[in-house]
């Protein structure tokens, strides 16, 4: 079988550990949450399910960022835009599911449109009451935007800092646009007050547990796709582009096509992460587009270890766990900690936690065994 061959040949040991742990979490967490009574020490609280579900979607975003940054050398300061666009697509579906249960009890229009005295659904909202269409849009809208943006940018050989800055301009422009009421996406309040998804009550604990499991599954799928790309032949070229773009071009590869492919796949992944994020937190608003959010996603990857995929997911979990803890314990201290983390990781842990750990593990193994030549793959600049 292709799949089993893929699994056994392309997934390394760390990847297996990652997948098995995630698989266990996908099954155990809902069971421990729903079936074990709240008094028991094995019970997983409802808050924890929501929180960790959110982290899973962040981890998927981090893998998307790692795919372009860690393997292709494109530092995107605008991946939050794709995440938010996926989130908005999901939010629009959820908005239309409210139906006549809104405050103004309008049969079709969401509350904010009634408030703005609109009489019919804007064209951009058509079809979003259908779940399959909305899911198509979750992938299509970020994918299409990334494709068009990348098509122009990579073809004109916009690279390095210039590319980073215009990706930031992209997400900033989108943020300003979504803040406008007449864009038709709820202005600065965004979309919220969701009632149900596919007929299931979005507040019920069962739905939330299922959403958690789905997020974990999406994360596993995202990891497998990313892994499949980076271990393929095309993946080798993508890594070559990261390490020496002009040289790869001179060897005859169409650099821009490879970049465009990775870039678009990554954007779709980010969009799916956003779509899973929205029903779990219950709101999507334009601040998700803010450039600071995208940069925070970069730091998850940097902390976990860029170019490792598993590390990116790990970094997303760790940083966000620290954030939840800090904002509870020392609300003043979080920005100090985050800023310090940026500086510390770039200065002292350029390979991130996982990269540093892997190096240490290898060296330990080598010192035990009689030395053999090991071709350590160094991600160069």
């Amino acid at each position, binding site marked *: 079988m292709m799949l089993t061959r893929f699994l056994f040949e392309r997934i390394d040991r760390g990847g297996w550990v990652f997948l098995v742990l995630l698989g266990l979490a996908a099954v155990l967490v809902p069971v421990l949450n729903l079936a074990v009574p709240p008094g028991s020490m094995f019970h997983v609280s409802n808050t924890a399910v929501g929180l960790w579900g959110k982290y899973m979607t962040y981890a998927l975003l981090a893998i998307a960022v790692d795919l372009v940054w860690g393997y292709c050398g494109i530092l995107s300061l605008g991946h939050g835009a794709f995440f938010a666009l996926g989130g908005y697509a999901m939010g629009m579906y959820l908005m239309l599911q409210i139906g006549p249960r809104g405050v103004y009890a309008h049969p079709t229009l969401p509350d904010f449109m009634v408030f703005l005295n609109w009489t019919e659904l804007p064209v951009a909202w058509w079809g979003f009451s259908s779940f399959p269409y909305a899911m198509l849009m979750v992938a299509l809208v970020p994918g299409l935007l990334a494709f068009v943006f990348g098509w122009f940018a990579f073809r004109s050989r916009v690279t*390095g800092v210039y590319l980073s800055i215009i990706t*930031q*301009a992209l997400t*900033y422009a989108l943020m300003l*646009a979504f*803040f406008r009421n007449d864009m038709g996406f709820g202005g600065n309040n965004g979309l919220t007050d969701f009632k149900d998804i596919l007929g299931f009550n979005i507040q019920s604990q069962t739905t939330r547990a299922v959403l958690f499991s789905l997020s974990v599954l999406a994360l596993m799928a995202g990891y497998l796709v990313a892994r499949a790309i980076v271990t393929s032949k095309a993946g080798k070229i993508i890594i070559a582009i990261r390490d020496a773009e*002009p040289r790869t071009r001179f060897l005859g590869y169409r650099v821009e096509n490879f970049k465009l492919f990775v870039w678009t796949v990554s954007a779709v992944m980010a969009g799916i992460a956003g779509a899973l994020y929205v029903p779990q937190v219950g709101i999507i608003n334009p601040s998700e587009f803010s450039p600071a959010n995208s940069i925070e996603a970069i730091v998850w990857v940097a902390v976990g270890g860029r170019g490792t995929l598993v590390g990116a997911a790990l970094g997303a979990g760790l940083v966000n766990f620290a954030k939840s803890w800090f904002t509870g314990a020392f609300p003043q201290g979080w*920005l100090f900690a985050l800023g*310090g983390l940026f500086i510390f990781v770039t200065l002292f842990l350029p390979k991130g936690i996982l990269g540093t750990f892997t190096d240490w593990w290898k060296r330990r193994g080598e010192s035990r065994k009689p030395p053999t030549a090991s071709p350590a793959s160094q991600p160069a600049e």
Partner: protein
Amino acid sequence: MNASTRSGLDSGSGTLRPCSPPPAARDKDIGPIRALSAFLVAALAAFVLILAGPARAQDHAALVQRFATESFNDIAGAVNGLATSGSPRAAPVIEALRDGRLVYRAGDRQVFIRRPDNSFVNALTGEPAADVGTTRPVRLNNNVRRAIDAAVGALSLLHPDPARRTSAAEAVFKSRDSAALAALDAAIGQERDPRIRKLMEEARAAVVVANPQAAEADRIAAIGIIQRRGDQDALAMLGSLPATTPPLVREAAESAAVGIRRTLAVWEAGQNVWHGISLGSVLLLAAIGLAITFGVMGVINMAHGEMVMIGAYTTFVVQQTIRTVAPGLMDVSLFIALPMAFLVAGAIGVAIERLIIRHLYGRALETLLATWGVSLVLQQAVRTWFGPTNREVTTPSWMSGSIEIGHLAITANRLAIIVFAIIVFAALLLFLKRTPFGLQTRAVTQNRRMAGAMGIRTNWVDAFTFGLGSGIAGLAGVALSQIDNVSPNLGQAYIIDSFMVVVFGGVGNLWGTLVAAMTLGIANKFLEPYAGAVLGKILLLVFIILFIQKRPRGLFALKGRAVE
């Protein structure tokens, strides 16, 4: 005292103007004030007499007596008559009437002003009157109140304070009340300030144009005067002619309105350019330091906005210190703040370079992340130290106010910032072109390794450039503290725009930054009226994203092998 007088006690008793001495001062007999007021009264009376002849004095007596009535029409007539009489005693009477303090004795039709302390003065002579007996207040209705408002306007036309005369003329221009014509004529005759006289003539023209009884030729001539005025008010005036206006006058008004609109459009474009240059120079100040560091080191300093913020906070601290130590120096506080801000921000910049960026040499994208971390730490540090709220920065007196050139309003602080941006730009240009260090900096910008091979200490150049760029950001902060809120988020507001300026202008030379800043500033201000502020900004961002596709290294890119 009867009930109706007592009810008058409750009404407010503001004074209208110090044209004649307030009665209280007279009673207490304060020498110089009395002499001065006597002189003023005499002077006013003198030219009133010159203007109108002695007949007016008797008119005044008759007019004041007309208040002693129950008929609203008579009262309104008396107000109108008094206003145009030019009598120095007119204002206190009308003012007292407005405040409900004008009373009369029914028996002998004597009119009195009741003062706030409940004593009375004779309205005719201004002498204190004891033992007034039973009085009734002069009654008011809306008609009378309108007459009072017009009268107050007419009296202000003769006021010694030029500002009062100006606003009175403007008020007549807007009200176009034909009752004010006589007062206007009198005022024009004696006005010596040409600007105010012009205003009065325009006001007179407005009255004539609006007056259906005036001759057609007069009205058309008056339209000419209004067209020469040529602002929005003139346009509104010409657009609001009543339907009964004769066609000839109407035609003249319409063609004048077309002419005014054409001139106004030109002025408006000029105003947009001015606003654009003003915004452009702010962007230039914020971005030029960024451009230098980016040019030399190839790294974008994400903490640049925080350097601007630190400059602004330095201004705040300097002003606080001056306020406690030497309040007299407040007007020159900015000149003390400028070098301080340069040094503080520059020192922090050098520290960042030595401690962090030096270790990330050649890893531009990592530098971007590390400086972002620095920006978060600096922001939070300032927030912890100074608090999250806006800090008050004083604007020196020479930077407030505005001048008008034609229909162009130029505020002094914006002008100062433009001049400052030009000075900074010129100084930097001179520095880079004329000093040995500038030469070395340019060499490193063009080809770092070759410059190193020629014996330039590139790491010194790096540290120095970073300090210089940060120092200039500090200077920008001093300037921005005058037009923006000094808060920990100050830098964030400008950083993305600064990036845009840098990537748009390229790093080839400083002129690129100048052209980019001005282009973005002016384009922004021209898009604003059509697209709105937010949409205008979005359009510009999209434009830059597209522009970068055409010229991936900005407008003024370095050419040659040095680039890759």
